[in-house]
C-alpha cells in the first residue's frame, strides 16, 4: 500500500470492517531471543477512534511491546497489527517510517529530546522530516502546553516537566491519528506528572485517540475510561470503567464497633 492510500484510510475515518476501529491486534505474538522479558503471547484487542485507553501491567509484562508494535517501531513474530485499516506487515521499512511520521505521536518516559537543538527545533523535527515548514504551529503548540517562553532554550536548561511538554508538542506537530505515551510521567515529580496527565486529558477531550502505557493503577483509572491489563504477555482483562460520580458512603465505609460494655 502506498503512502497516499494509507492517508486515505485514515482520513476516510477508518477502516474496512469497523465503524470507528482504529487499531486491531489479531493473535499477536512477539518472541524475543534469549528470554528477554516483554514478550507477547496471543494478544487480540481493538481500539476505537477517540478512546483514551490505558495499558497497564507490571514491568516486563509486555505492555511497552504492545505499544511499540502499534507504533510500527517493531514487528510481531506472528499475528497482525492493523492500524487505520492498514496491515503494518504490508509496509516496507520506508512505508513504516512514513506511517510513524504521519500517524503516530510518541511520548517516552525519558523525553528523548535532541540536546543540541532548541525546544522549538525539537518540536519541528517530525514536520521537517515530512517536508513541511510549520514554525507557527510549533510555537502555537508550545503556547497551548504553557511553555512558549522556553521555545529558544536547549533541553539541558529545561525542567523535566518542561522537557516532557516539549516532547508532547513534538508528538503532536504532525497531527497524529494516534498519540502513544509510554510511562510519560515516570521521570517526573508528582506535580509535573499531574500537569502532563491533565494535558493528555485535554487532548483527549478534543478527540485525540490516546494509548497510555503505565504500571500505575491510580494513574490509569483516574484518566482512562478503559484499562487493558497485561500480565505475562497476555491481556487478562479489558475493563471499561464508567459510571457517574458516586457518593463517599457508597465507596468507603469506615468500620465502627459499638462500645461493648
Amino acid at each position: 500500500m502506498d503512502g497516499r492510500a494509507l492517508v486515505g484510510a485514515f482520513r476516510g475515518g477508518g477502516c474496512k470492517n469497523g465503524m470507528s476501529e482504529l487499531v486491531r491486534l489479531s493473535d499477536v505474538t512477539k518472541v524475543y531471543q534469549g528470554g528477554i522479558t516483554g514478550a507477547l503471547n496471543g494478544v487480540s484487542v481493538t481500539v476505537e477512534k477517540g478512546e483514551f485507553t490505558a495499558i497497564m501491567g507490571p514491568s516486563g509484562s509486555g505492555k511497552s511491546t504492545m505499544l511499540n508494535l502499534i507504533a510500527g517501531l517493531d514487528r510481531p513474530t506472528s499475528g497482525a497489527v492493523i492500524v487505520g485499516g492498514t496491515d503494518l506487515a504490508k509496509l516496507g521499512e520506508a512505508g513504516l517510517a512514513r506511517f510513524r511520521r504521519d500517524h503516530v505521536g510518541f511520548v517516552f518516559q525519558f523525553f528523548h529530546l535532541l540536546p543540541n537543538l532548541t525546544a522549538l527545533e525539537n518540536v519541528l523535527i517530525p514536520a521537517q522530516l515530512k517536508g513541511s515548514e510549520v514554525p507557527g504551529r510549533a510555537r502555537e503548540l508550545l503556547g497551548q502546553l504553557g511553555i512558549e517562553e522556553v521555545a529558544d532554550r536547549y533541553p539541558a536548561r529545561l525542567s523535566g516537566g518542561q522537557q516532557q511538554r516539549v516532547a508532547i508538542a513534538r508528538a503532536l506537530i504532525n497531527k497524529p491519528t494516534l498519540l502513544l505515551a509510554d510511562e510519560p510521567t515516570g521521570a517526573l515529580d508528582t506535580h509535573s506528572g499531574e500537569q502532563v496527565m491533565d494535558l493528555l486529558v485535554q487532548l483527549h477531550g478534543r478527540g485525540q485517540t490516546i494509548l497510555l502505557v503505565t504500571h500505575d493503577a491510580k494513574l490509569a483509572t483516574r484518566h482512562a475510561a478503559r484499562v487493558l491489563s497485561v500480565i505475562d504477555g497476555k491481556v487478562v482483562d479489558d475493563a471499561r470503567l464508567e459510571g457517574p460520580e458516586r457518593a463517599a458512603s457508597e465507596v468507603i465505609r469506615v468500620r465502627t464497633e459499638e462500645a461493648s460494655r
Partner: protein
Amino acid sequence: MSLKYGVLGLLKGEPLHGYEVKSRFEAMLGGTWEVNIGQIYTTLQRLERDGLVRPAGPRGDRGKLLYELSPQGQKALDQWLGEPDSGPQQLHEDIYVKLLLATRVANGDLQGMLARQKRTYLQRLRDLNRLEERARRDGRLDLARLVRGALLHAEADLKWMDELSSERFGAEGARTE
C-alpha cells in the same frame, strides 16, 4: 474505629447534645460512616456511667442534654490517641479463600475469577480517584486523606491480584496441599 473514642474526641472541642454528635461525626467522615441516633445515645449513657463524660448543665429545650468531657474522659482520650493501632492486619480473606479453592477444584475458573475481581478493584480505584478530586475541590483535605488511604489500599489489592494472576502463582498454588 471505635465509636466511644470518636464521641470523646468530638466532645473535647465543646459540649454537644446527642444529635449534634451524630451530625458532626457524619460530616467529619464525609458520609463514610453511618450511625443511628440510638447508638449515639447508648454510647453517651455508657460513657456517663463510666465517668468519662458528664452533663454540662440541666436539660434544656425539648429535654436536650448537653454533654462535656470529664477529666477522666480527657485522660482516656489522650491515652487512646497516643497508642499505636495494633492488632492483626485486616485482609480481604474471601478472595484468598476463593482462590485457594479454585486452584484445588479441577474446573475452577481461576483466571476468570481474578479478572472479575481485578475489574472490581479498578472500578473502585476510579471511584476513589473521583472522590479524592472532589474532596480537594471542596477544600476537604481531611476527607481527601481518608480517601487517599483507601486508594493506597486498593492499589495494594490490585498489585496482589496481579501477582496472583501471574502464572507462577498458579503453579505454586497447584502444588499446595
